[in-house]
């Protein structure tokens, strides 16, 4: 972890949003750096590398996706995208381009803060992999390859287990269908999303108390899945 308060770079052209983010982030104890255009954002990112970037995709001077790609060329810090609803393809593209998460406008402050915390935690946890993960009633022992729900062992098929572990590793982050297919099934025809859906449904039946109202494996409709981090 870095010394002092984490610095957050906000690249967003709308002043009202910058203003309320400034108030919010300062209050939460973050160091706030703001840019109103893509060029300025890129410049600020190089001059004072941030711990986290909040990037709006709709910028006046350049495409947000380009800004994202150019940042990702060298920046390892998490990047959270701000986007409008109904732009699922944009979201997927941003995630594929290296964004860590997204928040859909309009968003509540609680939601944004939770995403930021998750992202920062992930960024700092690299290398300190735990062997057991415990979320709610769910306990997974990575070394022993056992899964317990409410202290009862659950039998998973090898693929189910692999899917669960992949999601757990990125708990709290959105994982696109394509990413999950590639991680679990390998280089498969990546359009066959329904394989994934069927396996997720099966996994939910084994892990969730009410599979129709999941608590662990949340659906990001049109994008992918997010494993609840807490």
């Amino acid at each position, binding site marked *: 972890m870095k010394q002092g308060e984490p610095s957050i770079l906000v690249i967003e052209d709308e002043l009202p949003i910058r203003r309320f983010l400034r108030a919010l982030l300062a209050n939460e104890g973050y160091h706030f750096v703001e840019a109103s255009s893509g060029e300025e954002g890129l410049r600020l990112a190089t001059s004072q590398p941030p711990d986290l970037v909040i990037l709006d995709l709709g910028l006046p001077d350049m495409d947000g996706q380009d800004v994202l790609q150019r940042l990702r060329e060298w920046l390892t810090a998490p990047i959270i995208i701000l986007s409008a*609803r*109904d732009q*699922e393809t944009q979201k997927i593209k941003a995630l594929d381009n290296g964004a860590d998460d997204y928040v859909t406008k*309009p968003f*509540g402050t609680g939601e944004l803060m939770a995403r930021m915390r998750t992202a920062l935690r992930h960024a700092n946890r690299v290398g300190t992999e735990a062997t057991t993960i415990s979320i709610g009633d769910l306990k997974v022992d990575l070394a022993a390859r056992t899964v317990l729900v409410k202290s009862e062992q659950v039998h998973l*098929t090898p*693929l*189910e287990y692999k899917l669960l572990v992949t999601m757990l590793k990125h708990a709290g982050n959105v994982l696109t269908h394509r990413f999950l297919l590639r991680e679990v099934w390998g280089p498969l025809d990546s359009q066959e*999303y*329904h*394989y994934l*859906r*069927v*396996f*997720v*449904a*099966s996994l*939910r039946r084994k892990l969730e108390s*009410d*599979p*129709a*109202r*999941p608590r662990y494996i*949340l*659906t*990001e*409709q*049109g994008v992918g899945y997010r494993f609840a981090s807490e």
Partner: protein
Amino acid sequence: MSTDDRPSPDALLARIKAEETSQVRGALRIFFGYAAGVGKTYAMLESAQKEAHQGRDVVIGYVEPHARPETLALLAGLESLSPREISYRGVTLREFDVQAALARHPDLIVVDELAHSNAVGSTHEKRWQDVEELLAAGIDVWSTLNVQHIESLNDIIGQITGVTVRETIPDHVFDMATDLELVDITPEELLTRLKAGKIYLPEQVQRAIQSFFQKANLTALRELSLRQAARRIHTDVESIRREKAVTHPWATAERLLVCVGPSPTTGRVIRTAKRMAAALEAPWLAVSIDLTGESSNSPAKQQIAQHFRLAERLGAETVTLAGQNITETLLEFARARNVTKILIGKTHQPRWRRLIFGTVVDEVLEQSGEIDVYVIHGQEDQKESPAIKRKRTTGNYVPYVKSVAFIMATACLAYALRYLRFADAEANTVMLFLASVAWTAFRYGRGPAVLGSMLAVLAFDFFFVPPFYNFAISDAQYSVTFAVMLTIGLVISTLTSRLRAQVESTRQRERQTSALYELGKQLSSLCGRAFLASAAGEKIAEMLAGEVAVYLRRSTESLELVFGRDSTIARHAVNESVAHWVAEHDQIAGAGTNTLPSATALFLPLVGSQQTHGVIAISAPDPERLVEPTQRRLLEACANQLALALERDQLAIDAADARVQAETEQIRSSLLSSVSHDLKTPLAAISGASSSLLEVTTLDDVTRRQLLETVVEEATRLNRLLENILQMSKLDAGAASPNKQWHVLEEIIGSALHRTARELAGHAVEVRLASDLPLMYLDGLLMEQVFVNLTENAARHTPTGSRIQITAAVDGETLRIAVADNGHGLPPESVERIFDKFYRATPSADGGRGSGLGLAICRAIVKAHGGDITAANRQSGGAEFIIRLPILKDSPHIVVE
């Protein structure tokens, strides 16, 4: 001459129109001379050089390569188009390349020799047609012309010089020239130049001097050209005066009528009429009277058709009249059309006939009343085609044989009667013969009837007049009987055959009228361009026993062959381009016309009031028939009918489109009025709450918190409303085409419930899905929206603590999904309308702030998935929404191992 100096509205309008056209059309300047060698080309190129020096974009389109060296020297420094080379019978001909000129599109183009005839295979027969196309494209054109090439002067000059010029230009082309530049030198000077070899090569000089270039000729030609130029200047002055002048009485408009007959002298009469009409600036009509009703390819009819074509070229309106009496019909028409002057050719008839029967000319002169009549001495036109004469001699002898046979049969009958001593009075025999003559006349026409009446007299003499079996007569009384019998026979045959001809002619007209009527009736009962085109095509093909193809406009650029794909017309590649030309220029072209005559069919444009709808191509076994004026008018009438029908069809489609547009417009406006209210309410709450927070400093913490909660809640509501509106407009616009994938229904319901967790917090939600649900082919986002809207709707309209049940099961070939609640249910009258846009059944629990769009969106989405959604009240109380989605047979089955 017109003394009309007051600028009449019509004249001003015409002036404005002319100015408008001249803005888009190029201007034509003609360098006008009276003979070769006066220096027209030289003058033209000299002026062109000047224009080029002043920076104008001048291009030399074509200058005759045999021009004089000093003339050719003037080409230096000017851009020239290379001529098009056409090989014709082994000779390479060089022609002006009109396509290259259009492509180059200069400001001004110089094209020598306006009256030139193009080589076979060119777009147009004549160069002036090329020039017209250039002018139409907005290019200014300079060209040269000699006086003897003007069509209406052609015969006069032929008389003066004894040399008939075949290359002529229609008068309207000459009149079309914006500027006329007269290039004039004295005949003496011209002859000097000729002798100096400046005009023709030495070996041609002598021949030229002996024929055309006689001083007398040259003087006469010079006078003619000066007169033409003077007339032109006068017209220009007149038009300027008319524009500027203030007062003068209205002059009665002159209108000329020229009688057209089959006589070869008519050509001259027509040309005279044109000159007169030009001098009077009067419109003129060429009229023929159809007395004989002979079939359309009779020699006389063909001759008249040829004269009509000449008259049309010279700018006349042509009319064919039908009637019993030439004079009456003619004068009646003349009066109806306010004709002021009638021109009629002098009839060539033997003196005795004129004395006894009088002539049409005399009759017209006698009865014309207030109309002036000019009798023109006609001179035989040398242009008459020998083919027509030949046709005239190939008579048909069969009617004569039949007529003779019939009279002989009558003689036998009369003889039998006499033998039987029944009705054997001489008077009865005469009557019998006359009756058979009348029948012959009606059946076989005039010639056989005349023969028959003479034969009847002879037979009567031979068999029935004593001494019998002998042509001698015993009683001189009989000579009177013979004379009367012959006269009556002749009169009967003339009258009867005329009657027959009229019946024939009426029948033909009747056929044409009924064909047109039939066509009109058929077209009015049909709709759809393809149907209209093929109905008209079939009818016209049947009428002419020929072939028809119809090309209709697909877009502004391209034509589509809609009817006649199997016809020979479609098989010739050249026809396609002719069709394009016709559609573009709105002019008749193709076989039998002067434009693009190489086509295998006649092409008529289908001109509607707003646009040209396409082209109809007609080919008949006898192409001459197509150009015959009556036939052509019939074809034009058919084309008009089709054009009108196509236009009506187009308008109907436009009207339907407009109706749909209006409905969409109406929905949009009701959306606006509904939405503006719904948008303003939360905005008012937000701005009210936040401004109180900002301005009122004395608020306690509880109130502050309440105000802040209001802001958040109203913002959420506003967001939801906006999303609904956006979604609805996307669905309406068809922009939200479903992105379908194989989905697990449970997951979709799950994510919907996750999204609405806040709204559902006070309700008990129960999901019961059958375990055997197949994968569904859906757009996950859209279907999630359906469940979001349905559950939110349920939450909003039921009291807190109510239960919301979601169940799904396979029902036959559909998946039945129900979203039910145990609230108050729907008002019975709203069940039908609840899915309509902006329909709100009841004020909802939170104060009736739904957008009225939620369920409409659900319906649109479910429909887009091929399913349906219904609403009903449950028997146990509460409302129930039922979605049925089709289950696809090929749904993948995946086993999780």
